[in-house]
């Protein structure tokens, strides 16, 4: 079974943490998925199937013309930012 520590690590890579009990629920959920996916792996001929990403083959798709439009005003860009300075979104110093 996947360890709680490992799940915590995955969560932290997604930038959040959860309660202990929540990790336990997650552990069992993941176990179920793994078991079910094991069964899926046994479906005949599955390995020869191309995984599907789009619901159907879309022939009509068009690339966009290179025309400038739909820009937001500066006020709109910054409208939902909680901290703004010099017309930019301000955050604590980012260190690489």
């Amino acid at each position: 079974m996947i360890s709680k520590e490992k799940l915590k690590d995955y969560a932290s890579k997604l930038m959040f943490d959860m309660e202990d009990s929540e990790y336990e629920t997650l552990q069992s959920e993941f176990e179920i998925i793994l078991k079910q996916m094991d069964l899926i792996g046994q479906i005949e001929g599955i390995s020869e199937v191309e995984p599907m990403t789009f619901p159907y083959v879309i022939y009509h798709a068009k690339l966009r013309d290179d025309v400038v439009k739909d820009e937001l005003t500066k006020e709109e860009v910054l409208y939902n930012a909680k901290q703004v300075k010099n017309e930019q979104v301000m955050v604590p110093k980012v260190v690489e």
Partner: protein
Amino acid sequence: MDYMDKSIDEIRKALDNNEITSEKLFKEANALAHKYQEEYNCFVTILDEKEEDTSNKTILSGIPYGLKDNFSTKGILTTASSNILKDYVPVYDATVYKKLKQAGAVLVGKTVLDELAMGGTGTTAHTGIVRNPWDKTRMIGGSSAGSAAAVALGIVPFAIGSDTGDSVRKPAAFGGVVGFKPTYGRISRYGLFAFASSLDHVGYFTRNVKDAAYITDILKGQDELDMTSLPDDGKKYVDTIDNEIKGRKLFYIKEAVDLENYKDNDDPELKETLKKFYETIELCKQIGFEVEGVSIDRKLLNALYPSYIAISCAEATSNNANLTGIPFGSRGDGKSIEEIMFNARTNGFSELVKRRFVLGSLILQKENQEKLFLNAGRVRRMIVDKMNKLFEKYDGLIMPTSGGVAPKFGDKTDRLSDRYLILENHLVIGNFGGFPSISIPSGFVNGLPISINITGRVFEDDVVLNMAYKIEEKLNYKNQIAKGVK
């Protein structure tokens, strides 16, 4: 003042005959929205002022509606029922909202959903649970919970939702109303907060099939902002809704509805629901449909739910990675950038959502991707291929929308039971293949509504609406609202 439980045709007539004005309609809907808010919690935001009407006249001019709170509405709070967006006021309009505005439809409010549209209970919104208008101790289902309840309560004649697995069709069934999601790409997703982009569909709740056709006619069309949107087919679906259906062929999946398969199951509700389903099948035959049971590989059917979970969680974890509280959304406290993102997300999401994100992330991990994510995509193709094969012979799949009635709050479902695995999850087939799919009320079990679902060939929204209309006509549950609330 009681127009909100009427059909679009009836309201249109009243407006055109000057029996009522759109202002009065808005006031009626607004009053009802407030009246039921505490009890049922349909809305995140109720608009108390009617938006300015700049539209051309259409069938929807002056008619109130509700919009799920995961559609971007410029200047109107849009939360996706999540704490991380509790103060978010969009600066652009979703295409669906823009089209409805241009058509003159009047927005009454933004409806509650399961947080970020993930979930099927209507219990995970940051503003609380949504209750079923037929029985307050029960769920309305989700994720488009508020929209379903608002239409079932007769607050609005229609409401917009979104459907990634069954998020329109299932709550429609539990609310005794019509729920329709057209072909993938028929309606632009631009401005719909993404859950799982390859499965997300715009859908809606109405109280009859014809109203769903009216709305589709208004909303459909290619959008240059959504590369997956379809060029308009030039049809008006409402015009062909009453076409003859004699000779149309339907099939149902034997494995899912055969009572023989549930011998060990002592759930009387399930048995009653299946019995009613066969009654509906008989009725379909009476009006000229040919209906047959078809067998589909059990292993493939059992794979529906896990494959759906794998695909949807994987896409969801990526789609929601924009929620960090930096350019928008609730910001976390902290001294470093990592800390503020971490706190924003830790406090901004509830448990279910977080678990799904971690699952999605696990599924996409390099070492798991082949077995989990790509195999799910393979199942998706196998199912869709199988459906398309069947659609060479049949015009549609008919199934009970759910294996029972709306569950009670606190009901524990065994997710691995046969009922759950197939009967409660077959609707995702419609999302896997982008097939048009509609649920219409088909009767009652224990005084609570049940539904049947019809799924058709991709692009053939008109045929699906036509078939549903004809069945609805015979079933006689048209235009119902929750008993007792009026």
